[in-house]
């Protein structure tokens, strides 16, 4: 199994807070890995290290064997990463359709000159509409983000990330803000993408759905890696149970 992403001994400190401490994780081609851990475990921070938004104090991240240190966020995205964020960030002056269309057109946006030479958006809009329909919000395609509830924007984040056709899809709590039925549909979609060969790292608090669709789990607690392995085994691990009960108490 070819390795897509390799995280090696990554540590991130924000002032006095150690958000991630010695995290290591390897993701192979076609894998769907559930990434769980209590609030504040450093999950989002590790995602941000992968996308290059946050620079680690220690460790490195390799994409298909290449060290991404000093790569800009946009370069990482063009190399095959896409992130659907936990805190939604729609482009507010654009409809959902335009938000996704811009991502679909990444071929045209590779450089200022290329972007200047292209005007037609029809094909990209068609693809964007399909993606919005696929995540269940096709009806809202022409609405502005400010008029829509969180559940729609969460799914737009996923559609926009899919639009980039990434080698590795990073999802940060895509089920949050969705009702039970919508969450189940989204989980089904993630599982289907995985069956089609998409490699996915999924942060999610909805354990029921995570356990249902993810064959592999990576657990982080207090910034430290706690467990990594087959889902049933990880969930049976007393340390994992303690971390969760501790967080619940």
């Amino acid at each position: 199994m070819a390795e897509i992403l390799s995280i090696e001994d990554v540590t991130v400190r924000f002032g006095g807070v150690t958000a991630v401490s010695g995290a290591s994780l390897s993701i192979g081609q076609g894998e769907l890995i559930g990434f769980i851990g209590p609030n504040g475990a450093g999950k989002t921070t590790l995602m941000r290290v992968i996308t290059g938004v946050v620079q680690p104090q220690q460790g490195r991240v390799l994409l298909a064997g290449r060290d991404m240190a000093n790569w800009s966020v946009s370069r990482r995205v063009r190399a095959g990463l896409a992130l659907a964020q936990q805190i939604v960030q729609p482009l507010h002056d654009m409809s959902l359709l335009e938000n996704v269309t811009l991502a679909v057109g990444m071929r045209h946006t590779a450089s200022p000159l290329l972007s200047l030479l292209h005007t037609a958006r029809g094909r990209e809009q068609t693809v964007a509409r399909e993606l919005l329909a696929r995540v269940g919000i096709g009806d809202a395609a022409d609405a502005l983000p400010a008029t829509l509830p969180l559940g729609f924007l969460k799914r737009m984040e996923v559609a926009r990330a899919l639009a980039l056709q990434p080698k590795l899809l990073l999802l940060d709590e895509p089920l949050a803000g969705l009702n039970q039925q919508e969450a189940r549909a989204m989980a089904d979609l993630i599982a289907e993408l995985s069956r089609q060969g998409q490699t996915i790292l999924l942060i999610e608090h909805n354990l029921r759905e995570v356990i249902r669709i993810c064959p592999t789990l990576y657990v982080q607690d207090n910034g430290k890696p706690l467990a990594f392995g087959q889902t049933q085994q990880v969930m049976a691990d007393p340390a994992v149970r303690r971390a969760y009960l501790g967080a619940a108490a």
Partner: protein
Amino acid sequence: MAYEITLLTTMAISVLFALSLNFISGFCGQISLGHAAFLGTGAYTSALLTKASVPFLLTLPLAAMTAALLGVLVGLTSLRVRHDFLAITTMGVAFLFVGIVRQQDFLGGEIGVSGIPPTGLGRVGFLILAISLAAAFAAFSLYVRRSWMGFVFKSIADNEDVARLLGIDVPRYKLAAFVVGTAVAGVAGALYAHHFRFLAPDSFGFIESVSVLAMVIVGGIGSVWGVAFAAAILSVLPLMFQFVNDFKLLLYSALLFAMMRFSPDGVAGLVRRFLVTGPRNRG
């Protein structure tokens, strides 16, 4: 007739200059508080060259190049840094430009440059040239708005962190906008020099930079028609009415404030709401 030609020429040059700032601030969301420095760079370049007997038309591309060169320098130092740094850097550039030009004898120092030769185009020919250049850049701006470049600019103006996550090389696009905007300001400067045929360093400082920003904001930041309209009107009011000239900064500041308070999208927004036309952010 001569008076009308002077007014129209002033208008056309101001429209070109305001549209050049609109490309940077309106399209790409990068506020510049020193845009007059690039107008000045083009003006001095062109004036010194025609005084050295270089044909006027040849000085236009050279004025664009020197202004864009300064633009690249300023852009590279500030556009990679976050959000509002450009506003501060460009403000510094406006003061530096005036400060440096004043010290240079070969730029005329405090006294400025006079005796700038005529262009050989005649007053009407020069007016037609100025209008053509303004119209051409307006057309180019409208095209860019429709292109993927305009799409990318809009995303950067909206949220540059998101743009990065969509694979957009944000610093490069900002630099592209800045280079186009400063180059065109340089061309406007060449026209300015040969319209007034006299240059004083103070004409290219902070006050002029704020005035042109007022034109862009009053017109409706990003709107090509709105900015062109506002620039045309606001540039000639001081020439037609002495009291406007006397209280220019006060009046324009008040106008700026009123617009931001009552119609943040400027005249273009007012018209749009009045007509309730088509999609948002067009025109």
